[in-house]
C-alpha cells in the first residue's frame, strides 16, 4: 500500500473511526460517506466506535496472504461491533479458542509492513474478552 493511501485512513484504522447516518441511525465501519439506505437524504457524521463486539464468523488462514507469512496460521473474523457495524479483522488468540459468538475487544497492533525498508502499517485487531 502506498504512503498516502495508508495515511488517509490512519484515524479510522487506529481509532475505529467510522460514520453514522443521523437520518436512519445506522452506523458504518469501515466509514461510508453515502448511506445505502438514505443516499443523498442521509446526514453523515463521524463516529468513534467503542471497540467491543462479537465474532460473527471466522476462519484460520493457513495459506497466508502476501506479507502475512510469518504469522501463519492466523485467525481472521467478521466481528459485529456493539453499535451494529461489522468489520473484518484478525483475532489474536489460539485458533482453538475461536468461537462464533465470542466477545472481543480492540487492541492496537502492527497490521504489516510494506517491506523491510518500507512503511509499517499499524491498526486494530481484536482479542477475546
Amino acid at each position, binding site marked *: 500500500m502506498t504512503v498516502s493511501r495508508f495515511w488517509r485512513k*490512519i*484515524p479510522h484504522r*487506529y*481509532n475505529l473511526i467510522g460514520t453514522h447516518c443521523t437520518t436512519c441511525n445506522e452506523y458504518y465501519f469501515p466509514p461510508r460517506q453515502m448511506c445505502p439506505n438514505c443516499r443523498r437524504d442521509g446526514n453523515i457524521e463521524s463516529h468513534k466506535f467503542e471497540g467491543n463486539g462479537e465474532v460473527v464468523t471466522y476462519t484460520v488462514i493457513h495459506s497466508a496472504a502476501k506479507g502475512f*507469512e*510469518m*504469522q501463519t496460521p492466523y485467525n481472521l473474523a467478521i466481528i459485529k461491533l456493539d453499535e451494529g457495524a461489522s468489520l473484518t479483522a*484478525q483475532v*489474536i488468540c489460539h485458533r482453538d479458542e475461536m468461537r462464533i459468538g465470542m466477545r472481543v475487544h480492540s*487492541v*492496537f*497492533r*502492527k*497490521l504489516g509492513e510494506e517491506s523491510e525498508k518500507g512503511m*509499517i502499517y*499499524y491498526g486494530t*485487531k481484536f482479542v477475546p474478552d
Partner: protein
Amino acid sequence: MMNVGIVSYGAYIPRYRIKLENIAAVWGADGQSFINGLQVKEKSVPDLDEDTVTIAVEAARSAIKKQNIDPSRIGAIYTGSESHPYAVKPTSTIIAAAVGAEPVLTAADFEFACKAGTAAIQTCMGMAGSGMIDLGLAIGADVSQGAPGDALEYTAAAGGAAYIIGTSDLVAVIEDTYSFTTDTPDFWRREGMPYPEHGGRFTGEPGYFKHVTSAANGLMEKIGTKPSDYDHAVFHQPNGKFPQNAAKMLGFTMDQIKTGLVVPMLGNTYSGSCMIGLAAILDEAKAGERIFMTAFGSGAGSDAFSITVTDKIEEIRNKAPTVKQLLENPIYLDYATYAKHKNKIKV
C-alpha cells in the same frame, strides 16, 4: 518548582514468555546458574505483530482510560526506547494519532538506553511545571534485543509504561528529581547493528552502581531525606541482583523494594524497566506513602525521583489492567518460536 506530578499512568506487557532454562538449553549453558546469578526466571516476548509502538500505545491508552483524560489536553508526547521501529520517523507521532492528541502538541523520540523514559518524564515535568503545556505524556517502552547466545539474551524483554504528567489532580506528586550523567561507554549499539555490545563486568561498578548511587544520594542530600523516609523504592532492573545490591548500598531494605521488583517474572524491559516497577508500586500504594525511584541508562546516566502518593490514587484503581494482571496468564514459548517472534530468523 510548581507542584508537578503524575496525573495517571498505565503499563503494558505482552502475553508471551520464555523461561531462562529454555534459552540456556539451546546454548549448552547451565540454566539454573543463570537463574540464580541473574535472579530472573522468565522474560516477556512480544507477539509477532507487537513492537515498541504498539506497546507504547497500549500503555498510553491505559493511562488515559484510568482518568478519562481528554487527549486534546496533551501538549507533549515523548517516547523513550532503544528499539524504536523507525530510525527516522518518531514513535511519538504515531502515539499522538492513536490516542487522539493530534495535532496541537509537540513530540519527539528519546534515546538513552534504559532511562529514556524517565528522561521523558523529567522533560514533561519541566514543561508542565513551567506552564508551557497542560499535560505531558512520557512513555518508556522497548522490545529489546539480546544477541543469540550472549548474556543479555537471558534478560532482554518487552514491555512499557506511560505516565501523564501535570500540575493538578495528581495521584502522586513528584517532589524533585536529580540526575547524574557522564560519558561512560558501558553498553551501546551502533546505527544499523541488530544487537548491542557491552563491557561485561564494566557495566556494573563504573556503570550501573556509580550512577545509581550518585543520583540517589545526590537527591536525598538535596531534599534532605533518608532511605527510611520511604515506603517503597524502585531501581532500574537489568536483572534481580543489581537493584538488590543498589538498595543495600544505599540503605534501602528488601521490604521496600519488593513491590516494584518485577524483573524476576518479566526480564529487563529496558526503557520500561523502572517505569513498570513504579507502576507496580502505584497499583498498590496507599495515600501518603513515599516512593524513591532511580533509573539507569547505559552511556551513562541515572535519574532519581522522590514521589509522594496522594489520596487521589484510590480513584484510578482497577480501571485498566494492573502490572500484576499483566503478569498473569503468560503463554510460554519454546526457543524456536521465540526466535521467530524476535526476528532472529532471517527470512
